[in-house]
């Protein structure tokens, strides 16, 4: 284990045990946090571990989770996607508004098509024109929000007959006792995880994100790979919009505002590096759930909602730090 390594300056004394503990903590770091948090919360609130509460939290987290699955793929491919929040507003407003106008089936199809088109624009600008993904998706964040408002004229959209549409299934339905949003989240996560870990396509995305030059020399068409990650991201956003629109049966124009940051926070908490070429969907699922349980647990304990932000700040840095420290077998960097 790591105890074979002589601890470097900066590491706390009490070497062996602490180093061993640290290495365990950081290897399983995020799971440990997860369990620790669950224990603390269940100690303070008796409802916390109730089945209905857990279901509520996972269902609430599933919208962020579904998007995070797609964004994780983009990040593994070496890029970022900050436009998902606006895209979620766009897709939700679109599907809800079109529901009464052209029927649920057509509305869903058109919404998926248009969302994928936006994803294609992102993918084209970043994959083929090689523009910086942070700035492009930042610009798209603004532009898409404008498009939503122009489309709806700034009005809320609603589905008139909420009881009589099968569209309710995606956000409010249950299958075998499990809420449909959770099922969609789970299925998507499993599917994408398999694609990323078991297929040639997944390996190519990892290669492109990890070492773009080497990937190109080995004959991978980098442009298309990057392009496709944004289609996956857009597809996930469209699925999330389906859940969100159906859950609320209406939408405001800014409904997705800020989601991009929560999604990123979840991914980072899970331990996927932002540098590309590494990460996994499982980690993201756990990260998103942690985010959801922090929020819910603090609320149940009676703390105001903004305390979750402070707690998230601390946990994000600790989680990533321990992960890094484990990789370099030391707690602190050697820079001066």
């Amino acid at each position, binding site marked *: 284990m790591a105890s074979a390594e002589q601890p470097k300056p900066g590491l706390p004394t009490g070497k062996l045990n602490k180093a061993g503990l640290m290495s365990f903590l950081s290897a399983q770091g995020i799971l440990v946090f997860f369990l620790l948090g669950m224990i603390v919360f269940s100690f303070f609130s008796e409802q916390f571990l109730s089945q209905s*509460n857990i279901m509520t939290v996972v269902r609430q987290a599933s919208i962020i989770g579904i998007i995070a699955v797609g964004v994780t793929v983009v990040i593994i491919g070496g890029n970022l996607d900050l436009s998902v929040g606006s895209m979620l507003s766009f897709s939700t407003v679109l599907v809800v508004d079109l529901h009464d106008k052209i029927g649920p089936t057509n509305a869903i199809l058109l919404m998926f098509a248009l969302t994928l088109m936006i994803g294609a624009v992102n993918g084209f600008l970043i994959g083929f024109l090689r523009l910086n993904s942070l700035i492009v998706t930042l610009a798209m964040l603004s532009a898409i929000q404008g498009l939503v408002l122009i489309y709806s004229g*700034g009005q809320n959209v*609603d589905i008139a007959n909420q009881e009589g549409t099968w569209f309710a299934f995606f956000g409010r339905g249950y299958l075998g006792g499990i809420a449909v949003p959770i099922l969609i989240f789970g299925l998507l996560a499993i599917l994408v995880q398999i694609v990323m870990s078991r297929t040639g396509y997944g390996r190519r995305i990892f290669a492109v994100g990890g070492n773009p030059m080497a990937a190109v020399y080995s004959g991978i068409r980098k442009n298309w790979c990057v392009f496709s990650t944004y289609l996956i991201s857009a597809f996930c956003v469209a699925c999330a919009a389906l859940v969100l629109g159906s859950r*609320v049966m209406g939408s*405001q124009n*800014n*409904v997705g505002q800020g989601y991009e940051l929560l999604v990123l926070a979840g991914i980072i908490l899970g331990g996927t590096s932002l540098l590309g070429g590494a990460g996994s969907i499982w980690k993201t699922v756990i990260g998103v759930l942690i985010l959801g349980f922090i929020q819910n647990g603090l609320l149940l304990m009676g703390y105001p909602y903004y305390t979750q932000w402070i707690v998230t700040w601390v946990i994000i840095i600790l989680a990533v730090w321990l992960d890094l420290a484990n990789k370099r077998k030391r707690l602190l960097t050697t820079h001066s």
Partner: protein
Amino acid sequence: MLKKTIITASMLAVSVTAAQADTYRIGITQNNVGVDSYQTTYESAFEDAAEEAGNVDIVVLDAGGDVARQIGQMQDLIQQQVDAIIIWPTNGQAVIPAIRQAHQAGIPVVVTNSKIAEAGLDFIAAFSGPDNVQQGISSAEMMCDALDGEGQIVQISGQPGYTTAIERATGFEERLAEACPGVELLETQPGNWNRERAQRVMEDFLTKYDRIDGVYAGDDNMGVGALNAAKGADRADEIIFIGATNFAVGYDAIERGEYYGSIYQSPVDDAEAALQTALDVLAGEDVPKMNFFETPKITAENLGEFDRPVF
């Protein structure tokens, strides 16, 4: 008879020419158009009203919810030397210095929809809008009636720090404590005027509290979010929902009997009142400082008296 008509007609003609010669340029800086339908409907109603008035040239700006941008827009309007400024404050306190600058530049300012803090009242010509404290009081009274003075309730408030949200919550809480001490307010969480967020808050309330008899939401948009959550947990029947700013979804829910009541507040009335107040000020009339337009209670009993809101 004929003579009288002619005189009236000529007077009319005179007044029309006078109006044309005397076109007012009025600037409006709004809070955050597009964030919900109320504000968007207000904007188009305002534009319609200005067109109808005929002698008004309007400059319509939107602060996008950002105080700093609104102050910039105030400065731009002062710079353009418009005849009057109508402001829908993004914040009741932070806009006061900008309003004071307009006042010092000799431009009358009408505050619309959401009040500013008292320190700023000296610098405005008038306020025009709903009485949000009264709305909170009315909602508390409805809650009392609906629960017969006994029960446990939760509150979902609007955007933290926003005057309308604070006034409604204050009015509601104070009146509730006074009118029916038997009703206990368990907890208040903000829903940020957002239906999805309110739905999430309510879901958490439902897991946290086994018994909830009533929900007061700062507007119907959030109230319907809470209703959605309660329906999802099969507890909607045991809960009384009361909102404010009656939205079309809230109106329909009252009609279906799922929602107890709300406060009827029309953005069209709001916009027309603001423009009229500004025009009265410009015409040199003696305008009272506070101009509240009617915002009655709406429940299943008197639903028929109101048109379905367009937003």
